Structure formats: structure tokens, C-alpha cells
């Protein structure tokens, strides 16, 4: 069973229909028991870091996420929440990835919105079958700096983490649920890990 975390910042429906297209049913839930039992957990995200972290902390979902042992995938804001800290309203985040989330420099065109390819890609099961020239859909004004867990690099104004992995925690800055065939490929890779 696949659980999509329900919280105040998720585009849960888009993720759910993307999984459905791939032939996987999922539940949208914030129930700790269901999340702990799930084969996969997806943390989607569209929104603002501080209110999202506050929402998770008030419900102890922050600790629950850290205790998960199954593969977990953070998407967009989900990726940023899994980092140590975000410059967005100076927010302390989950700390799974030892990196900082920063705002793109002022006077540049933000959000980074649209289809972008990779600057580099590691060979890793999550990115299986994806190529450097594949375009995925991004919408974000903050980015995770490169770090030891970076598995794919995208360049917009500067290089940033497009995909990361630390143990059972996976994260992507782009929206695989909105990224046509390449996005479907990534979701399928995650589901088949």
C-alpha cells in the first residue's frame, strides 16, 4: 500500500492520479498507523516551509517521518522539508539531508518555472532509465544546495539538487506527477525500489 502524506501543503490529488495512471492505488492520510505500515510513503508539497513544518510538528508527524523505514519520497516542498534548514521564513526542517535550502538570488527570474534537464545524474535505482537531456517540470523559488546526498543536479541560475537520497529517504525538486513520461518513469522507479 502506498500512503501519500496529508498535510497543509500537498497537491495530493495530482500525485494520487499520477500513481493511478501507473496502475497503483494509494491513500491520502495523516494517520500514523497507516503511514508506519505503508510500503511506500510520498510527501508531496506545494506551499511554504514554515507553516508546513509547524503543521507537521503540531501533530508529531515530524518525528513519525524520521522513524519511517520504508522508502519515502519527498517532492518539491517535500524535498525542502527533508533538509536541515530553509531560508524560507528561517525554518528549522527535518534534517534528513545535511544541506540548506536557499532562495534563488534576487533580481533573477523566479520562480524557476518550466521544463529543465539535468546537469549531471548519478547511476542509482531512483533515476534508472532517465537521461541527462530528459526534461522535468519545476516550480520553485528555493533550492537545496549540492551535498553528499545529491544524486542529480539541475542548473537554473546556479547548480542545485534535483534529486537526493539518504538511506531510505528519496527526494526530488521537480514534480514527477506533472512531468509527462519522464516523471512517470521516476515514480515507477520509486515504487519498484
Amino acid at each position, binding site marked *: 500500500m502506498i500512503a501519500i502524506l496529508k498535510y497543509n501543503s500537498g497537491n495530493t490529488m495530482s500525485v494520487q492520479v499520477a500513481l493511478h495512471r501507473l496502475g497503483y492505488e494509494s491513500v491520502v492520510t495523516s494517520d500514523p498507523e497507516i503511514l508506519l505500515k505503508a510500503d511506500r510513503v510520498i510527501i508531496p508539497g506545494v506551499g511554504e516551509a514554515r507553516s508546513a513544518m509547524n503543521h507537521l510538528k503540531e501533530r508529531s508527524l515530524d518525528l513519525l517521518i524520521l522513524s519511517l523505514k520504508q522508502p519515502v519520497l519527498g517532492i518539491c516542498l517535500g524535498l525542502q522539508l527533508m533538509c536541515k534548514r530553509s531560508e524560507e521564513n528561517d525554518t528549522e526542517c527535518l534534517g534528513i539531508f545535511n544541506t540548506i535550502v536557499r532562495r534563488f538570488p534576487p533580481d533573477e527570474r523566479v520562480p524557476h518555472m518550466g521544463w529543465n534537464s539535468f546537469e549531471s545524474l548519478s547511476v542509482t535505482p531512483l533515476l534508472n532509465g532517465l537521461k541527462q537531456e530528459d526534461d522535468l517540470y519545476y516550480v520553485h523559488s528555493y533550492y537545496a544546495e549540492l551535498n553528499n546526498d545529491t544524486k542529480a543536479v539541475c542548473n537554473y541560475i546556479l547548480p542545485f539538487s534535483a534529486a537526493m537520497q539518504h538511506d531510505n529517504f528519496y527526494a526530488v525538486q521537480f514534480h514527477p506527477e*506533472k512531468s509527462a513520461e519522464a516523471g512517470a518513469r521516476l515514480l515507477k522507479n520509486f515504487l519498484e525500489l
Partner: protein
Amino acid sequence: MLKKRIIPCLDIKDGRTVKGISFVNLRDAGDPVELARAYAEQSADELVFLDISATDEGRKTLAPLVEKIANAINIPFTVGGGITTREDVSVLISSGADKVSVNTAAILNPPLIAELADEFGSQCVVVAIDAKLVDGTWVVSTHGGKRVTTLPAITWAREAERLGAGEILLTSVNRDGTGEGFSLDITSAVSDNVNIPVIASGGAGSPEHFREVFAETGCTAALAATLFHYGIIKIPELKDFLMRNNVAVRNRPPV
């Protein structure tokens, strides 16, 4: 590299596509879902749906339609037309729309932009500006260009950005439907005056018009309707042309 986006726009009335569609053999050319799917398969980068229903009854068909579209396509889409309140937006976003576009309501009530950005995030909020050249100045117009304000389009674009808009959809009323090409001057001026992405709209008549607007202005996307609906230009061919002319676009991956 970030790609320039090609965005077909579909007019919807009472839940059906209105403009004539002849670019591909569809079982039902009036079905927005089938059309959306066909455009997605042709490598459209995003879609815009504009509800032009004249009645409340017609508008009620929009949310269920948005849900069907969200189920059918795997690219982002924007829904606009007649949005006036936070509740309107909430219904559309929870039905699966990625973004909403606001036009007249934002002009009449600018704080609406901030309200929507706070609640749903700037990335959801597209401010549509219908710019009309009147006595040498590009001003904001409403009601499809029939009424003009005294507000310069550039001023309004900057204000929309300050209030939290995530993107500007800039239509040249003068060029809309003419096929004479995008209005490069106002597209350039607005793009240079804001830091958010700008979608150029109105006037596309040939692949060269797309090349020109991408090469000569700061817009990051271009939108067209008739041209695509009537099959005058097919999106894969347009993208091939742009790539040959050094405009970076997303190509359809080989099947």
C-alpha cells in the same frame, strides 16, 4: 537549461470546447478532455483552459471538468475565466488545477492576488493582463478589450508581482486573432519590468513568430489557440523549427 514553453489555450463554454478543432481526428472535438490528452501527447508543455460560460449553470460544469482533465493528463494546466473569489480558486485547485488565472477580478480588487498567493502559494496564481495600445500607451483593458482603463500595463504587471503573482499571462488585444505576430514591444517591456515568468499571447500566426518572441523578449512561454486548434501549426513541427533556430524547447522523448 530551462526550456521555453509552448502553451495551447482552450476556450470552454458550458463544459465544451468552443473553437473549431481540426488538427487531429478526435471522436468528439468538443470534448475538452480528449483535446487536452491529444495536446499533451503532441508535447504541449502546459495547457490553459479559459471558461467563457455566460451563465452560472454553465460555470457549474467547470469543476467536474477540471477533475476529469487532471485525471487525463500528466502536464501542468491553468484554469481561468470568471474567477472572483478565494472559494472559486479553492474548488478549482482541489479539483486538480495546478494554477488559476485571474483577470478582471484582480483589477477590480487587487488584494485578491495577495489573498490567493498567501493561501495557495504564488506558483498557483497567474495574473492575466489584456494589454491594448491606446494613443501610444499600452493600457490594461477588460471585457476582451472592449473596455479600457487608464492603468499602464507595465505598472499593473509590477503591482501584480508585488502582490504575489507567480506568473503573468500577457495578451496583446491589438494582435489577438490577427496572426500578425506577438506584440514584441509590450512583451519585452513587461518581461524586463518583472522578475516573474511572462507568457506571451495574442497574434501568433507562424513558427517564426514564436522564434521571434523568444529571441527578442524575456518571455519564457508563448500561448496560442486558433493556430493549434485548426492545425495550422502542429506542436511537434513548431518545436522542431524552434530547435533548429536555437530556441531551447522540450522535445517529445522518442517512443
